[in-house]
């Protein structure tokens, strides 16, 4: 467990204690759906997947904005080998992560994928996404009710000499 180096370590510990107590109460629920961890609701986020822009998609999915954080490590190629199959992965040192989502800004619909994490599932995921053209790629991690993001630019062009 990362050592807590915050200004008021004791207050943090108490806080964590309180939160975990609350969690135990909800232990049997696969998803700690308590308000403190407003994970994306369980059913398929139809609305969010319909949004064109990345900002609207984030709002539709989470309802609030994320703050960039270096605790979210987003890995994607600088030049995509092929726009149809771009390996993208995220790992994070944040804890109590309830969901991780990927947004491809330049795609017709920004939200590409959203993953829900249960208790005990390691907050990391790798997948292969499609990117229409060179684009900004945003990964958002929802941890302990707050949103953290990481961004990377991926170059995408057609291959071959054209035909």
């Amino acid at each position, binding site marked *: 467990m990362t050592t807590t180096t915050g200004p008021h370590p004791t207050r943090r510990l108490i806080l964590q204690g309180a939160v975990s107590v609350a969690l135990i109460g909800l232990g049997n629920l696969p*998803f700690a759906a308590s308000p403190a961890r407003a994970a994306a609701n369980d059913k398929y986020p139809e609305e969010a997947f319909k949004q064109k822009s990345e900002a609207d998609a984030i709002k539709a999915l989470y309802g609030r904005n994320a703050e960039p954080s270096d605790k979210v490590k987003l890995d994607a190629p600088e030049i995509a080998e092929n726009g*149809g199959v771009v390996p993208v992965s995220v790992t994070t040192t944040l804890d109590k992560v309830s969901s991780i989502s990927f947004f491809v800004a330049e795609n*017709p619909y920004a939200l590409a994928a959203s993953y829900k994490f249960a208790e005990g599932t390691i907050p990391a995921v790798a997948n292969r996404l499609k990117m229409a053209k060179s684009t900004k790629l945003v990964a958002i991690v929802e941890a302990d009710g707050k949103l953290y993001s990481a961004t990377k630019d991926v170059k995408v062009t057609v291959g071959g000499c054209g035909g």
Partner: protein
Amino acid sequence: MASSIRVRANANGDITEVQALIQHPMDTGLVKNPNGELIPAHYIQELKFECNGKDVFVANWGTAVSKDPYVKFSFKGAKKGDELKISWTDNKGGSDTTTAKIA
């Protein structure tokens, strides 16, 4: 017909690493076929991984997930021999499910 889901689950210590590759066209609905008609959208919307009766990981996918989608994640709390149940449903109501023993 062999299942459309290929999965590998290996446990080392308390952490089980899961990789899945699913055979599915993942059509976006924006692509035309050779004689110019739009191929209708056909993509997996939800992919669920259950172990010991608990959903350990759920993926909600849009049209931007690659064809023959692949996903990798790990989770704690399972051991060798436990059964992992994987199931997906797509936007046309298609679905498939399979189980795999954790190696």
